[in-house]
């Protein structure tokens, strides 16, 4: 049936002039609407039902309806839409090329070609290599950086300054401590020297009591001293003001005594005598160290000081003070022989002395009160970490400080004659 009709139309189309058919279509149908309308009109003109067309072309009726209504998006795709249109047009005896051309013009801008998207296999869940590696790298760098920084910070100080426990330090101080005790308090000396030799712990109890008694009387008259006691506590062994420190120092003092059994006589004097020519100094302006030095002497000289006023007492203590300062601390460097420059620490300061050949002669942290005597040679240079913490004396005369507190000075030439010029 349909086939016959189709044949007929085909033949009629092929026999009739193409030029006649096509322009008619175009002129006649374009203004009215889309391709769908044209097709419907032609179908209705031929008296065909949609069902018949659908059966002949095997195209679903819904699709044909969509085509006629111009709902091309309802078709399965552009490629199929064109195919259906071509079949439909051919079936109705229209020129498929014209219909398809018009369809393309109508949907121009619409999706002409399908977008391709191929699903990609989901990558197996592995450890994200790149990210992890990066993280590890950053972490490693951070750790190394932190370690390097910390270890470097440690090295700079610790390498040079071995920590000295207070107990050990006190032992070392002990060597210089006795002199103040022995020298001024001559009457006590034999007693101390004797008792430690026999029994160490016992003398402490026996020796101690007297000074407290002496000191107890002392503080009220010696008013400038209180500051001295504060600093004196830093050297408990030597400068124990028993009144303040009380029984804590009980075991320290005897040790001092015990240790000093021998050095007291031999080393003690040598260490004390050379320091510097005794220069009478007013106790007020004198640095803390000397004031501290005064403290221990105070008990030693109760008979004199307690009797006199603070001012009157100064001259003798000053002399004793110098001796005491060395007693409190160690004295480094060559022992007085050919030394013109002397550093005395008023605060902890690192000192390094190099000679002309850049060889380190001395390098350590001077604690407050400690003294270093510079050998009298040419080309000696100083490096220090705390220039303000060093009190410089040239030939016993105090000269201007090398720098400010906390200032780091490097390669400071130590020339006694030049430095003497800066004396104040």
């Amino acid at each position, binding site marked *: 049936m349909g*086939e*016959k009709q*189709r*044949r007929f139309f085909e033949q009629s189309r092929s026999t009739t002039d193409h030029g006649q058919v096509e322009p008619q279509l175009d002129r006649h149908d374009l203004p009215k609407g889309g391709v769908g309308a044209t097709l419907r009109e032609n179908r209705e003109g031929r008296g065909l039902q949609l069902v018949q067309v659908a059966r002949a*072309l*095997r*195209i*679903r009726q819904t699709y044909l309806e969509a085509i006629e209504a111009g709902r091309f998006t309802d078709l*399965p*795709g*552009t*490629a*199929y839409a*064109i*195919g*259906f249109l*071509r*079949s439909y047009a051919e079936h109705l005896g229209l020129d498929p090329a014209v219909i*398809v051309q018009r369809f393309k013009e109508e949907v121009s801008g619409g999706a*002409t*070609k*399908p977008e*391709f*998207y*191929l*699903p990609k296999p989901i990558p197996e869940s592995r450890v994200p290599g790149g990210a992890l590696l990066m993280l590890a790298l950053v972490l490693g760098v951070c750790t190394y950086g932190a370690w390097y920084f910390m270890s470097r910070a440690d090295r700079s100080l610790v390498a040079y300054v071995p920590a000295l426990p207070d107990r050990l330090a006190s032992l070392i101080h002990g060597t210089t401590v006795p002199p103040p005790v022995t020298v001024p308090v001559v009457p006590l000396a034999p007693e101390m020297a004797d008792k430690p030799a026999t029994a160490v712990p016992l003398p402490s109890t026996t020796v101690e009591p007297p000074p407290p008694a002496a000191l107890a009387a002392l503080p009220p008259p010696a008013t400038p001293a209180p500051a001295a006691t504060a600093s004196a506590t830093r050297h408990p062994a030597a400068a124990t003001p028993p009144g303040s420190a009380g029984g804590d120092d009980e075991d320290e003092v005897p040790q001092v005594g015990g240790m000093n059994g021998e050095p007291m006589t031999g080393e003690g004097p040598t260490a004390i005598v050379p320091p510097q020519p005794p220069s009478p100094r007013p106790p007020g302006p004198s640095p803390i160290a000397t004031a501290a030095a005064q403290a221990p002497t105070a008990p030693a000289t109760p008979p004199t000081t307690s009797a006199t006023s603070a001012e009157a007492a100064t001259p003798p203590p000053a002399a004793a003070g110098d001796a005491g300062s060395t007693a409190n601390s160690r004295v480094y460097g060559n022992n007085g022989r050919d030394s013109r420059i002397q550093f005395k620490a008023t605060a902890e300061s690192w000192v390094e002395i190099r000679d002309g050949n850049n060889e380190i002669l001395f390098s350590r942290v001077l604690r407050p009160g400690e003294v270093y005597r510079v050998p009298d040679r040419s080309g000696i240079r100083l490096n220090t970490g705390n220039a303000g913490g060093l009190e410089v004396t040239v030939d016993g005369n105090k000269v201007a400080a090398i720098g400010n507190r906390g200032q780091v000075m490097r390669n400071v030439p130590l020339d006694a004659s030049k430095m003497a010029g800066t004396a104040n």
Partner: protein
Amino acid sequence: MFSKLLGVLSADMAIDLGTANTLVYVKGRGIVLNEPSVVAIATVRGKKQVLAVGDEAKMMLGRTPGNIQAIRPLRDGVIADFEVAEEMIKHFIRKVHNRRSFASPQVIVCVPSGSTAVERRAIQESAESAGARRVFLIEEPMAAAIGAGLPVTEPTGSMVVDIGGGTTEVAVLSLGGIVYSRSVRVGGDKMDEAIIGYIRRNHNLLVGEGSAERIKKEIGSACPPEDGEGRLMEIKGRDLMNGVPKELVISERQIAESLAEPVSAIIEAVKVALEHTAPELAADIVDKGIVLTGGGSLLSNLDFVLRHATGLPISIADDPLSCVALGTGRALEEMKTLKNVLISMY
């Protein structure tokens, strides 16, 4: 390294190396060449030289003197003559690049889905020795479906029938892959042969391949007309009885009769493919139908015959002759997206 450098200088190409025609698509330029796959080779002092390729060579087909051979290097969709095919590809690459040398493009060549590994290797090596830097292969039905604009990457079944010169490819595609494909070595050539055989048997007239092709294009039909003889055509050839050239008139009905065998082979292939289609895909195909591509789909009434045989809507693709080339070209343009529809032998 060096080849990569040359790659910058050369435009990537997609080649539809068909039995009848070779189409070349150049990236960014579209189809730039469409010529018959024919090479004319002249023997000059015992040395073979390419005389002509393409249209020019096709004119010589069947009209050559002794020292010239007009060869179709492809038979049944695959290379039958390596050297000649290589020469032909080389010629096309050069023609596209407008220069003699320094062309080393990336090339996608399509191969029949039913081709063997040996045949694929042959095509790849020919393209490589013709100067291609890298050769990818794409299966013809996939290229045809992409070229026809079917939504091949969607999870919906599409059936495509590509009737080429040498082979007919029937394939069901979904999700960017071929679900089922069937390749029969029936195509335009077989139709021509059928026409030649029919005329020789029934009219004792020998016609050439070219004439047979012309007859097919003019009055060829997949089914005989309802009534009468249909369109008529004068054909010329050599009379087998008395050996003189002769001219006679042949009708559409007669040609339809002669084409019955290859057409039924195609129908059979489609039917078998449908039989092997999974039910879900079959359901999709019932709705949308089958799309015909390739030169063979231009045979009049083929859609009609297939519609009757399968009961499915049959659509002929827009521009069926260049579908495969367009699809291969699209694969070249969207190489990243369509990477896994390509076959790489590296």
